[in-house]
C-alpha cells in the first residue's frame, strides 16, 4: 500500500503535437494495474483519450494538446474497497497493494469517492513530464468512482471518465459547479436557499443578469431575450421547471454554485452541472481562451520556392485545419500547361511533418452547368511530404510519376502576413481575414474545384483550381485589389511555365496571359460570391470556406 507496492515504468507520448514546452500536456497514470495488465492499461488510457479528443471544445483544440502515458505497475490489481463506509454502504473489504494507494470510500465519506495519493501521482508526473499541466490517474477497478482536486481520479467503470472531464474543468480552468444544490435537490438541505456573496470569480457562474456586463455575454444565444432566462419561484428548493429553451441555449438560468437562487449559470445543463452533458458555451469559450497559447500557428497560406522569388511562377496553397493539411500545388506539366496537384496530408510527427498522396484530378470544365461532382476523378501520381522548420519556412519533398525532388519553400509575402490559428473561432462568419480554401456553397455541392485565397492587407491573391474544356487540370490566378468594403476585383490570368521537374526552374520562362476578370464580394467571413469572366464566359458562384476539420482555421 505504497510505492513499495509497484514501480514506475516507461513514459510514452501517445498524442504528440510538438514540443512539451509549447503544448498543453496531459499526463495519465495508472493505478492497480499489475505488470500482466499493461495491455489493458494501455487500452483503458486510449479509451479515455478517444473520448477526450471527441469532447468539445477539446476536439477543436487537439493540435495544441499532448498526452503522455506513464506505465505504473502495481503489485495487486484494483483498489482498496473498505467494508464499512460513512455512507452506510458495504464494500468487499478488498485491500490492494497499489503504487498510488487508490481507495474507494476515501475519507470514510461515500463509497463512490475514489481517490489516490495525489502527492505521489503529481511527483511522478512532474518527474517524467516536467511540463505537465494536468495529471489524471486511471484506477483499474470495475466499480464506479472517482474524485477531483489536484489530481483527477477515475475508475474503469463505464462512463467514469466523465469524472475526469468534469474535474479538469475545476482544476485546469477554475470552473464553478453549476448545480444548484449541495447534498441533492431532495435532501431538504438548509443554507442553500439564496446566494448572498459577491460576484463569483469563476467564469461560468454569476449573480449579475445585466446583459451589458454579463461575463458570458459574447456567447448569449439572443441579443434581445429577457434575462434571467429562468427564475426560481421557491428558493427553499431547486427550481423544478424544465428548460424553456433549446438545450444549447445560452442565457442566465437561476440556480448554481450550490445555491437554489441568487446565482446564475449560462445554460440549463452543462458538464459542470451534470455528467454526460457537453460543456456549456461559456465553459467552452473559457477553455478555448485558456488554451489558445498552445495552438500551433497554422501553416495556412501561400508558399513558394525559397529564397523568395527564385522560382516565381509556381506555388503551393496550404489549408491547415487541426492535424491535416490540404495542399494544392499549382505548377506546370511537361508541355508547360498550367497543372495542379492536390494532397491531403495528415500530420505524421511532432506537429511539423505532414505527408500524403499527390493526386492529379480531372473533372467537368470550369464553365459546365451544372457542375457534376460525380464526374471528378482523382488519380494518384505520387506522394509528398511537407516539413516545416518554423512558421514561415520548410521543405516540400515529392515524388511525381517516379520523379523525386525536394524544394525549400517559404511563405509568399506581398503585404502584412496574418497569423492563422485553428480552433480559435467557432463562428467563421465573424472572420475578417478571408485567407482560406473556399469552394461552392452549399458545401460539397460542386466538390472538385476550389478557390485558394491569400489575404494580406488590402490585397487578395486567388488561385482557382478547376478544369479546362477538355477536363484536364487547369488553374487560373488573380491579384484582387479592394474596390469596396468587402469587394475585391482584378484580372484573371492563365499561366504557362517550365515543367514541375525542370532543373533549373527558370522563372523567366513563365508566361502570363490575361483571360478575363474576377470579383469576390464577401457577405461575411464565411460567405461570398465569386463572379468571373473567362474567355467571354461570365458566371457567378456562391462560395464558402471548405471546413474539413471543424471548426476550421481563421487568420487575423
Amino acid at each position: 500500500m505504497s510505492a513499495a507496492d509497484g514501480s514506475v515504468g516507461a513514459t510514452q507520448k501517445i498524442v504528440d503535437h510538438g514540443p512539451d514546452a509549447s503544448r498543453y500536456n496531459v499526463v495519465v497514470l495508472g493505478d492497480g494495474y499489475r505488470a500482466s495488465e499493461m495491455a489493458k492499461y494501455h487500452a483503458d488510457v486510449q479509451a479515455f483519450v478517444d473520448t477526450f479528443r471527441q469532447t468539445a471544445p477539446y476536439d477543436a483544440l487537439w493540435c495544441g494538446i499532448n498526452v503522455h502515458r506513464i506505465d505504473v505497475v502495481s503489485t495487486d490489481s484494483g483498489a482498496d474497497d473498505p467494508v464499512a463506509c460513512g455512507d452506510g454502504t458495504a464494500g468487499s473489504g478488498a485491500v490492494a497493494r497499489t503504487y498510488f494507494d487508490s481507495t474507494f470510500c476515501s475519507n470514510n465519506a461515500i463509497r463512490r469517492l475514489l481517490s489516490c495519493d495525489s502527492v505521489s501521482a503529481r511527483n511522478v508526473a512532474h518527474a517524467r513530464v516536467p511540463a505537465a499541466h494536468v495529471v489524471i490517474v486511471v484506477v483499474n477497478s470495475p466499480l464506479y468512482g472517482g474524485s477531483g482536486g489536484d489530481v483527477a481520479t477515475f475508475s474503469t467503470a463505464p462512463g467514469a471518465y466523465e469524472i475526469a472531464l468534469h474535474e479538469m474543468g475545476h482544476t485546469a480552468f477554475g470552473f464553478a459547479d453549476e448545480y444548484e444544490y449541495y447534498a441533492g435537490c431532495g435532501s431538504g438541505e438548509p443554507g442553500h436557499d439564496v446566494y448572498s456573496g459577491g460576484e463569483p470569480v469563476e467564469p461560468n457562474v454569476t449573480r449579475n443578469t445585466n446583459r451589458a456586463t454579463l461575463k458570458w455575454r459574447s456567447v448569449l444565444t439572443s441579443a434581445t431575450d429577457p434575462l434571467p432566462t429562468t427564475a426560481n419561484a421557491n428558493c427553499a428548493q431547486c427550481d423544478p421547471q424544465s428548460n424553456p429553451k433549446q438545450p444549447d441555449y445560452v442565457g442566465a438560468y437561476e440556480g448554481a454554485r450550490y445555491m437554489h437562487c441568487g446565482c446564475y449559470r449560462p445554460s440549463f445543463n452543462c458538464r459542470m452541472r451534470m455528467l454526460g452533458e457537453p460543456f456549456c458555451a461559456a465553459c467552452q469559450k473559457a477553455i478555448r481562451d485558456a488554451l489558445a497559447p498552445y495552438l500551433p500557428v497554422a501553416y495556412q497560406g501561400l508558399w513558394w520556392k525559397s529564397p523568395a522569388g527564385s522560382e516565381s511562377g509556381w506555388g503551393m496553397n496550404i489549408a491547415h485545419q487541426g492535424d491535416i493539411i490540404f495542399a494544392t500545388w499549382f505548377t506546370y506539366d511537361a508541355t508547360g500547361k498550367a497543372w495542379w496537384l492536390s494532397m491531403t496530408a495528415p500530420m505524421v510527427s511532432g506537429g511539423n511533418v505532414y505527408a500524403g498522396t499527390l493526386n492529379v484530378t480531372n473533372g467537368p470544365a470550369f464553365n459546365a452547368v451544372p457542375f457534376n461532382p460525380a464526374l471528378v476523378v482523382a488519380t494518384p501520381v505520387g506522394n509528398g511530404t511537407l516539413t516545416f522548420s518554423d512558421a514561415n519556412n520548410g521543405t516540400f519533398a515529392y515524388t511525381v510519376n517516379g520523379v523525386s525532388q525536394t524544394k525549400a519553400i517559404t511563405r509568399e509575402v506581398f503585404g502584412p502576413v496574418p497569423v492563422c490559428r485553428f480552433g480559435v473561432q467557432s463562428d467563421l462568419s465573424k472572420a475578417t481575414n478571408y485567407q482560406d480554401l473556399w469552394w461552392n456553397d452549399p458545401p460539397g455541392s460542386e466538390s472538385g474545384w476550389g478557390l485558394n485565397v491569400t489575404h494580406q492587407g488590402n490585397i487578395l491573391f486567388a488561385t482557382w483550381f478547376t478544369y479546362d474544356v477538355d477536363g484536364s487540370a487547369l488553374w487560373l490566378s488573380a491579384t484582387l485589389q479592394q474596390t469596396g468594403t468587402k469587394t475585391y476585383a482584378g484580372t484573371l490570368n492563365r499561366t504557362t511555365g517550365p515543367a514541375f521537374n525542370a532543373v533549373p526552374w527558370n522563372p523567366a520562362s513563365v508566361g502570363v496571359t490575361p483571360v478575363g476578370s474576377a470579383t469576390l464580394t464577401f457577405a461575411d467571413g464565411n460567405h461570398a460570391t465569386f463572379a468571373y469572366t473567362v474567355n467571354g464566359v461570365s458566371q457567378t458562384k456562391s462560395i464558402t470556406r471548405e471546413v474539413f476539420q471543424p471548426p476550421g482555421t481563421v487568420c487575423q
Partner: protein
Amino acid sequence: MPDDSPHALRLTFAWRDSQISLVASERVAMIVPASVPEPDVPATTGYSFALLDANGRVLYRRPLHSPIRIDAEAFSPGRGRAIERVPLASTDGRFTLLVPDLADAHAFRLSGPADPRRPDDAATELLRLDVDALRKASGATGTVPPRTRGPGG
C-alpha cells in the same frame, strides 16, 4: 547562452486548516494557460491567483476552484445522474499552481475566503510571495522524488 524561451513557475502549496504555505517552487520550460482579464463586474468572491508588477498592476490572473478541500464531489453513474457533495474530514492537503515567469513580475498573490468553510465570504489576500524569491527557490527537476504519504490510507 541564456534561455529566453517561455518558462513557468510551478508552485506547490500545502494547506492545513486555513493556513497555506509554499512547499516548492520549480522553474519549468512551458507555457501557462492564458490570463483571464478582470470582468466588467469585478469578482469579490472565490479563489484566484495573480502576478503583480512593482506597482501592483496585475500581469497575470486566473480563477481557482476551491484548492482547500473541505468537501468532495460524489458522482453517480449514467447520463442524467446528478452530483452530490459530501463534507470531508481531512484537514490538510496540497495543490499546485502555474504562473508565467515574467521579467517584470514582482509578487505572487493568492486570494480567497479567509475561512475555507465560508466560501461565499469576500475574498481577501491569503498569501503574497516575492517572485525573485520564488525564482531562487526553484530547483532542478528530472528525477523521481521520494514518495510522500498522502490521503486514502
